[in-house]
């Protein structure tokens, strides 16, 4: 259980990165698939894809860095407990 906790945490972080990547794809999709010509007025579908993609990218990156910061803080707390010689109850 303890060993699988770290793997789950990594999968969760990877999922956040994947969400951000999907958002990036949604931003780039109108231009990659050429249903939004450069210089032409923005269609509704292209505008909607870009907006949803930006939201997903921002949310995914924010979640990823927040989770990473929490994990780093936990590691620092565990290291401090180890230096004090107290027992450490780690998830990993």
């Amino acid at each position, binding site marked *: 259980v303890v060993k699988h906790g770290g793997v789950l945490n990594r*999968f969760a972080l990877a*999922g956040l990165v994947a*969400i951000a990547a999907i958002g990036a794809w949604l931003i780039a999709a109108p231009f990659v698939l050429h*249903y939004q010509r450069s210089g032409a007025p923005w*269609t509704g*579908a292209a505008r909607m*894809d870009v907006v949803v993609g930006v939201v997903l990218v921002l949310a995914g990156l924010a*979640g990823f860095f927040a989770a990473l910061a929490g994990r780093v803080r936990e590691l620092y707390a565990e290291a401090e407990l180890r230096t004090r010689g107290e027992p450490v109850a780690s*998830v990993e």
Partner: protein
Amino acid sequence: VAALGLCAASWLLLTPLAFGDQGTHHHEVALTDRATAGGLAVVSLFTLICWVLTWRRKLRGDGALPGTSRRQARREARELRQRARGAETEPANTGPNSPDPAQVLSELRALLIPLLTEAPDGRPAASAAPAEVHHHGAVPPPRNEQEPFDGFPPRAADLDDFQHAPDAARGYPVAPDNYQPVSGEPDYYQPVVSDGYQPSPAAQPAPVTADTPVAPAGPPVRPGPPVPSEPPAPSGIAAIESMLAGAELLTVGCGEEEAW
């Protein structure tokens, strides 16, 4: 974030239907949105499950959640209920099969009557009636009054342990009768003065008297060469040095430091 991803996926699925056919690439746009929405939904669901499991393990490790899952707790509760039900039904099942106590008593009485009617020496008892056995007759009556207690008598043999030899015979320094310590502290370097202790006669050499048998005289001893007199015994530091030299030789001979 994962929940937001799920919402975005559902939105992407619904937008082609909401906006309808617009533009020339509407089929391409709809296909792209649906594929992206499907992938986003799968990834968001996977991420959500991973986060839920991670937080659940973390809370369980911190003690915020109980150690057993709800399903396991339900299973244990069901087993306990079944056990309690079985314990309740057990006496009811064994009731009809258990022997009747009155019948058992009557059979035991019938078996005991011939044994009680015979005396220990084989003669029949005066009455054939079953005698009542009071087991509580052997128990002494309770004593409510305190019995007198004179205490433990002293034993004279205990004092023998304290009758040792005087201190002078054991090598302890004994101060003379007129000794007065100057500084108030005991002086352990006072010479040993005997307080009249006499060792056992066996340890003393027998005095030579006229009645004492004398060993027969041997042949006359011829005067030999003059024997050199022994060197004077070392004293002071020389004596200590000789002792240390002997111990050093012993150490070298044994080859171990533990010989000291």
